């Protein structure tokens, strides 16, 4: 199987991850504990796109509507999240904005916090700082992704995580638990 076939065949992993991220961002305040004492807040920030495998049909919803009613209906109609705009805050200070896609999990339009070093005055310092910021965002997202994979493969997925996720989708119009 070549890479393109493999990405297509296993895209459900990326789709489930984006859905789980949205679920966690609403039910757990989007807070994730990362290794090395880091904490991260991940929120859906902007648009999400949902598509089906079978027919070329997509829905794009904006989080300007806090309940994203249309997105939840689309999920119940068997559509899955294929693109999501995300805001990541690390240790309550560094904010990153980007989009993730389900097939490649490529980062798109990543905006990092402002780089303090001056590109002309200290190009090496600038390079280290900017590269460090990009790597930081990637490392945190990879860590959260692996949290998801561990849950997805564990018995907890079937016994508690998936039922809670389904409940959250179906009961979108009920107030969220405190």
């Amino acid at each position, binding site marked *: 199987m070549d*890479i393109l076939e*493999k*990405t297509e065949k*296993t*895209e*459900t*992993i*990326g*789709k*489930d*991850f984006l859905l789980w991220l949205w679920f966690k961002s609403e039910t757990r305040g989007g807070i994730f504990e990362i290794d090395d004492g880091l904490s991260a807040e991940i929120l859906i920030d902007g648009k999400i796109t949902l598509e089906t*495998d079978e027919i070329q049909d997509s829905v794009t919803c904006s989080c300007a509507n806090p309940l994203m009613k249309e997105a939840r209906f689309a*999920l*119940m109609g*068997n559509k*899955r999240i294929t693109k999501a705009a995300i805001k990541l805050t690390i240790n309550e200070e560094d904010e990153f904005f980007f989009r993730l896609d*389900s*097939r*490649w*999990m*490529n*980062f*798109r*339009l*990543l*905006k*990092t916090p402002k780089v303090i070093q001056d*590109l002309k005055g200290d*190009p*090496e310092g*600038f*390079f*280290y700082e*900017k*590269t460090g910021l*990009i*790597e930081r965002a*990637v490392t945190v997202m*990879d860590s959260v*992704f*692996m949290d998801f*994979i561990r849950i*997805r*493969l564990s018995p907890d*997925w*079937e016994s508690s995580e*998936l039922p809670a996720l*389904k409940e959250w*989708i*179906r009961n979108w119009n009920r107030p969220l638990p405190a």
Partner: protein
Amino acid sequence: MGLLRGSASFSRYIVNGTPPEGYLDEYAQNITRYSFRGFDEYSDEDRSTGWVNIMNIFDASFDQKLFHIYPYLSLSLRVDTRKVPSSALKQHCLEAEHRIMVTENLDYMSKERRREIKEMTLSQLLKRAIPRTNTYDMIWNIKSSVLIFGSVSSRTCDEFAELFLKTFDLNLSPLFPYSLAAMGLSREGINTDRLDSIRPFDINGDSDGHT
């Protein structure tokens, strides 16, 4: 696209293998060999690619300290493309055909001859076309073997992987959810076959998303 300036869109790869002993000298030579040269005045190609300095796209001379900031090796892939608008090509072909028919006193021009005129006209117009420049940054963390490349277009990524192989004699494996998960599980000593059991689940039904 730039990784260092503005917002960045990028693909990720794992570099298979490690650089050889004393790799900097060898790499400097190879990077220079595959550096960006642009179109020469006689070229009628529509695409020219090669490495440039990540800090300055007009600089294609490679001093080690320009591309090696340990543990990173960073470069930009510069891609210049030239295009002739189809309406301009059509107009110039018609003019050339008319000129030849008058000069050679022809009543009819064969399909083959028209094709030759089109090729010649395209070649002449391409030499006059102003190239469009795009650059795509690459940052390779030699310590972790992870590489990020500033494009998500499959054509550009394929072109990049090919040039990377020629330059560094190392293959790239793209990272995507399955491969990322497999890498993480292997690190934890967990059998990666379990990933193959993940199936889409039905939100409205009782399916749990496993086989």
